[in-house]
């Protein structure tokens, strides 16, 4: 297959074309910059759809891939290798789908240094796509670490009042995990003689105790990114301080890099260790579910609530993955997508009202439904999706996960699933609490406050509706007819599970 016309290459590196175009646009032409970025990201989305049309969903293997010798000197055996399979294709699509939406959300929210913002954002998209598509550990590590840099700038320059603290915390936390993974990658490269992921998986044969260490080193990187309890403390800071578009991508895609990492590397490369670790990972996941939910309820800041709810939701994903059976893992993958859609939408919606009120304190809100009915309706749907109401996407994923975890031999006890189910109820508590505080009850002080500045609160405008509409469509689609999504995932999961005893 020709290297230049390879769909994976095009999808990953098309954003660079956007960056190149942005470089030549003067910084004061803000709308040109915005449109250019939007068009570039839409074209990237188009390319990923093209990739989807070529994807054979009944094939469990890596597809459309290639492997070119890259650094093959001095005992190095590094290839430029990419590939896509059922484990990653939905995440690639999620990335290219959320990016234009996030860019639309910045239209009026980002007025300062628009050019730099758009460049960093587009670079971030490239990094994330590379993470999901790379099939060589060295290449993967480069993309993985690279995503830190643009995100760090997005938080640090365009973030809230404590942005510098949050940006550095985000950077250092994530780097702390990934450098341990770096050592594990080096170990694999030296003693297994290759950095190629598929080769490492087929080769296997790593002694059990070493496997456990390698598992832990990789897990350190991914667990921080997910984030799993107790490594989550960077997340609320990063979310609260990040600009809306940054939060959307952070919650929507960046966190999935962690769960994806477990799926792509930890499970197939170190199956024995994964089996041993499964109950412990499930324990941490369940603690995360309950802890995240409980802490969400205690928040006074809307964004912080949504941030902690991510800890809870990703606990579900981790529980599903370490159930190590088809239902659990398929549910986990779908729940990654669901969380990207609903939490991404929640951050978008919070950002939309914040743009008008400049506050996220619950205490000043109330009775907004009367003033902003469309906003209220959209928020209701998204909230219900986030808490897992049947008929919407969240239910499908959580149900599959709980089913998987309940019958999981690897986890070994149905109690984990039982406690996790309580998390579903807690989710209803904090999400309805949030909805009620903002939209129901007597009119909050913020309504008057905004009026004092000479304009009233307005409902969503056309651009904002266009921004959230695609998310709503998918929320219903997955909720009512998830079959096409499961069909994409299932064969690859079956293949992954071959490594584990049934």
């Amino acid at each position, binding site marked *: 297959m020709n290297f230049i016309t390879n769909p994976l290459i095009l999808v990953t590196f098309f954003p660079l074309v956007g960056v190149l175009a942005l470089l030549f646009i003067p910084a004061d032409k803000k709308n040109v910059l915005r449109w250019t970025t939007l068009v570039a990201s839409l074209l990237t989305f188009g390319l990923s759809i093209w990739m989807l049309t070529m994807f054979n969903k009944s094939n469990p293997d890596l597809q459309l891939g290639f492997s070119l010798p890259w650094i093959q*000197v*001095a005992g190095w055996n590094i290839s430029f290798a990419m590939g896509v399979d059922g484990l990653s294709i939905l995440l690639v699509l999620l990335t290219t789908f959320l990016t234009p939406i996030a860019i639309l959300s910045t239209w009026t929210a980002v007025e300062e240094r628009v050019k730099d913002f758009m460049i960093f954002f587009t670079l971030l998209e490239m990094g994330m796509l590379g993470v999901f598509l790379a099939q060589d550990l060295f290449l993967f590590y*480069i993309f993985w670490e690279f995503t830190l*840099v643009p995100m760090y700038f997005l938080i*640090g*320059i365009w973030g809230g009042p404590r942005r510098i603290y949050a940006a550095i915390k985000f950077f250092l936390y994530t780097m702390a995990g990934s*450098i341990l993974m*770096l050592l594990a990658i080096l170990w694999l*490269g030296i003693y297994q003689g290759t950095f190629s992921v598929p080769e490492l998986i087929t080769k296997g044969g790593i002694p059990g105790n070493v496997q456990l260490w390698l598992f832990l080193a990789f897990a350190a990187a991914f667990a921080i990114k997910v984030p799993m309890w107790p490594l989550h403390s960077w997340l609320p800071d990063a979310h609260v301080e990040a600009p809306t578009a940054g939060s959307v991508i952070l919650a929507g895609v960046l966190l999935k890099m962690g769960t994806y990492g477990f799926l792509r590397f930890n499970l197939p490369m170190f199956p024995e260790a994964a089996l041993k670790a499964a109950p412990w990972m499930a324990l941490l996941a369940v603690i995360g579910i309950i802890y995240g939910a409980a802490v969400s309820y205690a928040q006074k800041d809307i964004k912080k609530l949504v941030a902690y709810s991510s800890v809870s939701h990703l606990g579900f994903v981790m529980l599903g993955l370490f159930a190590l059976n088809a239902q659990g893992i398929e549910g986990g993958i779908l729940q990654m997508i669901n969380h990207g859609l609903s939490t991404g939408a929640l951050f978008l919606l919070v950002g939309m009202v914040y743009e008008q009120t400049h506050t996220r304190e619950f205490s000043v809100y109330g009775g907004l439904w009367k003033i902003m009915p469309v906003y209220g309706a959209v928020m209701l749907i998204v909230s219900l999706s986030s808490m897992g109401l049947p008929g919407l996407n969240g239910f499908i994923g959580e149900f599959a996960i709980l089913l998987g975890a309940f019958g999981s031999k690897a986890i070994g006890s149905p109690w984990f699933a039982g406690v996790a189910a309580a998390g579903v109820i807690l989710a209803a508590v904090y999400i309805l609490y949030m909805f009620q505080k903002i939209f129901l009850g007597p009119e909050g002080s913020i309504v008057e406050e905004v009026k004092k500045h000479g304009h009233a609160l307005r409902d969503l405008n056309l651009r904002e509706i266009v921004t959230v509409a695609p998310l709503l469509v998918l929320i219903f689609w997955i909720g009512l007819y998830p079959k096409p999504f499961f069909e994409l995932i299932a064969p690859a999961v079956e293949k992954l599970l071959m490594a584990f005893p049934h």
Partner: protein
Amino acid sequence: MKLSDLNTILPIVLLVVWACMLLLVDLFIPRRSKGWTALLAAVGLAAALGLTLAYAGRESTGFCDPNNPGNCMVVLDGFSSFQGSLFLASGLFAIAIAYGYLKRMGLERGEYYTLILFSISGMLLMAQAADLIVVFLALELLSIPLYVLAAFARPRTDSEEAGVKYFLLGAFATGFVVYGITLVFGATNATSLSGIAAAVAAGSFTKYLLLIGAALILVGFSFKVAAVPFHMWTPDVYQGAPSSVTGFMAVGAKAAGFAALLRIFITAFPSLNLDLVPVLWGLAALTMVVGNVIAISQTNIKRLLAYSSIAHAGYILMAFVAFGNPAVASDAAASALFYLVTYAVTSFGAWAVVIALEKTDGKGLEISDFAGLGRKRPLLAAAMTIFMLSLTGMPPTLGLVGKFYLFRTAVEGGFIGLAVIGVLTSLISAYYYLRVVVTMYMREGDPTTEHEPWLDLTWGLTALATVILSFLPMALFTWASGAVLKLF
């Protein structure tokens, strides 16, 4: 002595002759057009660089003992031509960053360029030395011009202090080296590396005398490469010396120190491996930890880069720990060389940015003076960001590839604990390197900067190289791994 002996060290001969001539020619160049001296010095360096590259791939020895042709004074091999190219290229950079800077600071004197040439001759000789006496000679030839250069901003007391401090500690370090050489000679009855290796192989040596001698040589060069606990001079000297000198010193002197360590230890002392591993392990770990931890509290960019340079000596030492393990030794040398190039490119870039912001009287050197640079000079700030990321070891920069190689060597040698210390201290380093980036982009300020064509060229080129070489490091890898030491 035969003519072919001279041929072995032809680049050095060329450079020394050129430097002597320049000393004379400079007398006739009027004070206001010292640019000609700079140009002539650069031409000399470029010629020597061309010659070194033309000789790359050759292997020969020179100035051998007629009765024992295995014992030679100098050697030309892949290692020496790699190191030689590095030294000569850093000489060119040192001139590029100095040209406008010296003028601006009122320091423009032709001797600057001549001294650089002499110092580089010493470094070249160090890379080719095959005898401990030549090592000593080279050490002095490279160091003495640097002492003078450190004090080059003469009326400024901190520069004088830097010169004196560097001289005193340098002399002290040389003392260690000489004493070590004496003991090694006493132990093996040889000063040539091949002679020592032969004596060790034949078993005709005194183990403890040799060990102490080797340890003293190690101490001496630890001063040169600024390894902890022999690093005390570094921050003061780096801060006091004119920035263009510091930039040169940070790269050249360190690389020369490692050239000597690598060649002496890998070729002459591999048998001391087991005894020295704990020492080197501790030295590397201590250097990485202390350098990185103390760097956190620095507010002056020159001191920050000084501690960063200490820390990077630690990373290179980490790969060096396995020097005596024959399976890893060639990787130890190659990864050290690769990293020295990485460090040289990045560090020169960073120093060029520092120089672009420096004002007279040592103003403009606080990290807070970088505030607002992201808006005022976007390209300059972007370049500095690239250098900081590269020093941290983040993609998409050469620093990541370099560290990857060093860590791989450490893991390969079985020193996983040391590698863990290495990555954890890299994490610490991210904090203080990021602080520079934070200041440039996230704090408001209005820095004044200089536009000097050669300076702009330096940071522009090095920034581009840092990024591009990270994707296409194959040639550099091949070259570094081909730069194996000639074993005796």
